[in-house]
């Protein structure tokens, strides 16, 4: 594997071709914040929190470090004003629909969001979907819909056959705690595809 030399926040870092900026930073002990990222899962690049500013040959731009591969001579900055501003606004947007992440949002300097949104307590980080499809291979949960109406839902068959109740491995991955909170030991009460399709919204928040 070809060696690659890059600079992250003023520190020279040695890495290899095919490694992402996020992975390279973590190996060098530099912390880039993340939310939807998980080491065991394919990168989803949805939350935008791992944004960094890169420059090469005088031009700089923002990229998502969880999917951007290292390049020789790359200069990476993880805390520029532009990056910090964007991270803050992203947290603000997520907080509006998921008040439960208030503590996390405070770490980014966000107290009260300027926005109002329907409370779903789900930021569509996709960890549950990816885990179930890639690792567990049970395919019991998926994204449905598109755009501003995109949601996560359980497949009815899996629910009714008790697949999810017996597994529950996605519970610990959910950053907002929505999945574990909506279930109890007696019956599984998450949102199924038929619920989503026919407008029966979240049963409890």
């Amino acid at each position, binding site marked *: 594997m070809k060696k690659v030399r890059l600079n992250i926040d003023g520190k020279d870092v040695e890495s290899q071709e095919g490694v992402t900026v996020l992975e390279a930073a973590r190996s060098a002990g530099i912390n880039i914040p993340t939310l939807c990222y998980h080491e065991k899962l394919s990168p989803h690049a*949805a939350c*935008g929190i791992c944004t960094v500013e890169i420059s090469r040959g005088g031009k700089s731009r*923002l990229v998502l470090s969880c999917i951007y591969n290292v390049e020789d001579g790359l200069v990476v900055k993880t805390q520029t004003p532009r990056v910090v501003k964007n991270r803050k606004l*992203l947290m603000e947007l997520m907080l509006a629909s998921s008040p439960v992440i208030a503590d996390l949002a405070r770490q980014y300097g966000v107290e009260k969001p300027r926005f109002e949104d329907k409370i779903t307590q789900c930021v*569509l980080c996709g960890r549950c979907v990816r885990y179930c499809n890639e690792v567990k291979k049970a395919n019991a949960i998926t994204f449905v*819909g*598109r755009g*501003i109406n*995109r949601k996560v839902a359980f497949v009815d068959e899996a629910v009714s056959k008790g697949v999810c109740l017996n597994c529950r491995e996605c519970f610990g991955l959910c950053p907002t705690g929505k999945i574990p909170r909506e279930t109890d030991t007696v019956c599984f009460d998450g949102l199924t595809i038929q619920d989503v399709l026919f407008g029966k919204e979240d049963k409890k928040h």
Partner: protein
Amino acid sequence: MNRLSSPAALERARKRILSRRDPDKPCITVCSGTGCHSYGCDKVSAAFVDELAKNDLQGKVDVRRTGCHGFCERGPVVVIVPEEICYLRVKPEDVPEIVSTTLVGKRLVDRLLYVDSNGQKIAHEGDIPFYKRQMRIVLASNRLIDPKSIDDYIALGGYSALAKSLFKMSPEQVLEEVKRANLRGRGGGGFPAGVKWESTRNAPAATKYVIVNADEGDPGAFMDRSLLEGNPHSVLEGLIIGAYAIGSHEGYVYVRQEYPLAVENLSIALSQAREYGLLGEDILGSGFDFDVIVHRGAGAFVSGESSALMTAIEGAVGEPRPKYIHTAVSGIRGQPSNLNNVETWANVPLIINRGSGWFTSIGTAGSKGTKIFALVGKVNNTGLVEVPMGMSLREIIYDIGGGIRQGKKFKAVQTGGPSGGCIPESLLDLPVDFDELTRVGSMMGSGGMIVMDEDNCMVDIARYFTNFLGDESCGKCVSCRMGIGQMIKILDRICQGKGQKGDVELLEELGEVVRDVSLCALGKTAPNPVLSTIKYFRDEYKAHIEQKRCPAGVCKALISYYIQPDKCQGCMICLRSCPVEAITGGKGLVHIVDQKKCTKCGTCLEVCPPRFAAVTRLSGEPIPAAPSLGTKVLRPKGKQQ
């Protein structure tokens, strides 16, 4: 027809087809593009066939259903060749007169001719101002051929560029020619096609794909549709030449399923080309193999983005991939894939036949060749126009488009679809050029050119596009999904009269995060409609927010309809027309709008006789008190009560 196994065989076939055709034989060409279809061109062509048979002329006059002529405003369009007599707005009832007067009597049917602004009648298609100022080279053959006939295409020299490429040029030479021509993508990105071809060609992999993007998701754009419906072979020929240059043996055409006629004509073209040995194995006996699969879209604008399109072809959900790795290097199933728009591919045979020198003689320094635009909206001559790059927006809208309908005042022209922006009157002399349009905050886009007038509200337009994007975004990125979601809420608020101080600044802030963090071109360009309207029409936003006024009179929550008691003549027309019975009054009694019931549909304003002009639309001002019920109208002096 036998398989054509050499360029000589193709040439012989062409001569054979031509020898069977009499160039002087009259032919009635009926435009059968989408627009004319909706006007009932089917019935018109059927009427011609019938009428010719009745007059025993069926062997002496041909009827040909052609591709789109472009003059959609005046359809159904009928052109009689070889004289090129052009009749507009032809109905089936007009057909007997056309046959007896023009075909038999050799005279014109005056009432069906184009009339210019001086009242002059124009008989020949090429002399009509709408066509005269255009440079129709890609669309040239649309009006001459039956798209379901490969012979028509061959008769005009079709596939000669392919023969030239395969037998007289190496793949590298073809590539160099396209690079020299500086053909930039016509789908919106404007990326140099030759450079993209080269990346794909040089990518180290045995299997490569070429793709035609016929998703055409921009609302208000129908250029690609007309090309695929009207001249599918021109696109196919370009694709095969490109495949040869790149080293690909498998191609895809991704067509949106909302275009069934395009799918049909394309499928016919593919099977005809295969039959003739112009597609499939050993094309024209050259040893080059290449074939094509048609893949239909299923109703998602975002799947027209090149990486999303490739993911859909793989069978997965059509969501974009991050552009850090170019699809030219890793596309369908990880293989190098070159995607170009329909119009881009259709330019290729012309460049090969006439040379890059000819192509670069047209256009500006940075944008060569022509561009097809769907000129629509509040313009007099709605239709499909093809102009050389560098022509000004003013010329297109006024000289070709005939100016603004109903004598209204121009306000803005929108280009680039939902990724583009609105251009105000002050910039009308801007030349149509990739870089110039981007410089002013819009973009060339795929070719939609929507003209707006004083009755269009720019805040409403921004809201329209942002709503569209909110629905069509795949929804993965928080920045795009939630960012656009909140922009929609703010725009809704502003249009409902609940705009607050700081809303414009908040829209700009959200626009920044959507643009900076989103992964694909949809997200990155999503703020453009809002940001460009804020840039050029900030005063309209201010009026909505600070004065609760919609200057154009569009936003329902900010307008009211009021019947002026001193002008109302109690004719009952608006009363009867109101769909929600919100108007009270009687014959000779002043009509009154019940503001609580009124749904602001505007029907009363539309139907009030112009000589009374009693209905007004108010915005940002208090509604005068209504007169009491039963008030008699004031008759004009000299008229009896």
